């Protein structure tokens, strides 16, 4: 605005004739913009694709098998036309339960140590180590469960009582897999608790433990809950560990020493073999996958909602 002659600029060109300062149409830019939008909308198409591909096959499946039968029958044996998801669901819940039993308390305690107690140096060392743990492929965890953890459990509780494939071993190793996720999410939640809140408690004479447990943890509770739910969603959707260590063959059992097949484990085992595309076997996999998709999506959305709410409180 400092230039006095700026108002003359539009008529400035020496060649004569008013320069056209209106927006010049640029077809190239428009095309590029359209392409970029197309790229971004692929994510929408992916979701539609997932819902459609699962939905179509699942729909043909549910024309043969009623929803009631699907959710109440206690036997999953496609060979005799029994499609009850309960055995698969119970195995998924069992492995997830053991995973969360290990990962939640341990993850939370590690997070408290990292955010409240650990010296800077220790923290700078431990966070990458946990990230490293999170970056290891799940097939490696599966191998670990089958070849290291299962023999240990069998030696502890007796070779007869514990199957070679069992839900306990798969669940515990899954807990190790989820541990870094829960620890880092909880740590984020704990360290975003305002300083003033902590300092207020310290000023009242509380010591470090009391500040951590009675002020920081409750204040970050929703973040911790979000981490828990996201961890649960990961456990439900985790595939390779349960496929390798939990066993093949759907069984309705809650005994952690027995083998059982989870939803994901079943999908991998059946689709890994030769499968005719028009069989009920094939369609039933999509029905299971649809249940899996809905459950994990629901858990993920719940988790993001909790996190968003929690942010609004302090910002």
């Amino acid at each position, binding site marked *: 605005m400092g230039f006095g002659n700026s108002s003359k600029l539009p008529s400035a060109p020496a060649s004569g004739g008013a320069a056209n300062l209106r927006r010049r149409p*640029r077809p190239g830019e428009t095309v590029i*913009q359209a*392409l*970029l939008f197309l*790229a*971004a909308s692929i*994510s*929408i198409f*992916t*979701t539609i694709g*997932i819902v459609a*591909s*699962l939905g179509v*096959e699942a729909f043909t499946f549910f024309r043969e098998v009623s929803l009631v039968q699907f959710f109440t029958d206690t036997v999953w044996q496609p060979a005799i036309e029994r499609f009850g998801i309960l055995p698969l669901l119970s195995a998924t819940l069992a492995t997830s339960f053991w995973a969360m039993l290990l990962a939640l308390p*341990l993850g939370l*305690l*590690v997070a*408290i140590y990292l955010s409240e*107690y650990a010296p800077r140096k220790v923290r700078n060392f*431990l966070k*990458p*180590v946990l990230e*490293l*743990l999170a*970056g*290891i*492929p799940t*097939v*490696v965890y599966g*191998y*670990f469960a*089958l*070849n*290291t953890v299962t023999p240990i459990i069998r030696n502890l509780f007796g070779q007869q009582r514990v199957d070679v494939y069992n839900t306990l071993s798969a669940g515990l190793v899954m807990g*190790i897999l989820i*541990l870094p996720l829960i620890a880092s999410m909880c740590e984020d939640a704990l360290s975003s608790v305002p300083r003033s809140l902590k300092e207020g408690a310290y000023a009242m004479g509380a010591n*470090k*433990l*009391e500040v951590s*447990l009675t002020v920081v943890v409750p204040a970050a509770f929703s973040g911790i809950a979000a981490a828990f739910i*996201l961890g649960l*969603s990961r456990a*439900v*959707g*985790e*595939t*390779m560990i349960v496929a*390798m260590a939990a066993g093949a063959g759907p069984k309705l059992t809650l005994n952690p020493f027995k083998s059982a097949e989870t939803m*994901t484990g079943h*999908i*991998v085992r059946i689709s*890994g073999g030769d499968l005719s595309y028009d069989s009920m076997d094939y369609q039933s*996999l999509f029905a299971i*996958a649809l249940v*899996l*998709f809905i459950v*994990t*999506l629901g858990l*993920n959305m719940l988790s*993001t909602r909790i996190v968003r709410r929690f942010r609004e409180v302090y910002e």
Partner: protein
Amino acid sequence: MSSSLPSSGRLDSRLEERRKKSGRWRIVFFLCTIVSVFFLAALLTGIVNQAFGYVLVQTEEDPASLVPEGTTLTELDTGALSVILQERLSRRLYRKLDAEAPLAERSSQALLDIIDTEILKPHVVATWSLFESIFFKQAIIESALRDYQGGSLQFRSWVNGELFANSQSSDPLRSGIRGAILGSLLTIFFTILFALPLGVAAAVWLEEYAKDNWLNRMIRTNIYNLAGVPSIIYGMLGLTLFVRAMAPLTSGALFGLQAEGSSLDGRTVLSASLSLAILVLPIIIINAQEAMRAVPQGLRHSSLALGATRWQTIWHHVLPASADRILTGAVLAISRALGETAPLVVVGASTFLSMDPTGPFSKFTTLPIQIYQWSARPQQEFRNLAAGAIIVLLVLLLFLNASVIYLRNKYSDNKAASQ
């Protein structure tokens, strides 16, 4: 006020108790952290434990019976070795080998290899873990002498040259991951070829063009939700969409490039890559968005003020300025794709593939798939092989992660220097 406080004696005693409690919990917190780190250590030890150790190898023929008294096979010259071959091999096999390359002109090492595969036929009868091999060496030697006669006990590293040189085979001593590594590299190459341009384009739209309306908000939320979908679901999507619906395209039939011997079947490298590309797309988009958000607004404004169009600004200034961070996201996506197993099993990785993949339309197997299949076998030797393959996979991933850290540090150095 002081009346509401406990007497000073009681206050002091409580203080001591509280202090002790705090100290105890501090140890608990610390121990939990140690336990977590211990898990990582246990995981790695468990794998190393299986990847090295004693094996007992038996041969179908005693090597000593082939050579004159007092010598060993390796001391013989090529002439003597070809005499052994001529005596021991069936005529047909001998002629066949001679026709491939005249036996008289082959090196003695090549002849020894033939003797090994065709006459001696070594096979593993027992294996021990590294832990056992170190601490119970004497017991192993005794049991080897007692239970298995005529075998030779040797310390074997399952990660060795042959692991890289050989492809899958039914003989654990000759099985390798050559085909699997090539398959992984080929798959990852096509995955990134599709996912990186698409992901960056989507991120450019969302960061630079998108107005804050319901559609773009939906796209954003959708991307975050997709990042949390279990990977096996992407496998199901890949199976319906790429393997079945787009079979003419993904099998190469459309281009007349279909691999030999395969009927119309979309279970190819291309289908696997496309499925993985969709899987890693959210990772690339989210990282690229963060990268572009970190580019200072001043850069955009100066470029626009000089008359550059929006796209010119993005192409010449925003993208170069955020390239290293976008690259970091790409490397993260690669390491995710490299370790994925479940979706590829669903998409239809080959269970047994002794040939190297040649292009996007060949059948595929990858390193994690190979590990999965070997672990599922009952024989201990294959589990040892799987452990060897895991070490290769982890080293590859470690290398990728190290490059991410290097890129990050370089980025923060540059930033520090420019400020």
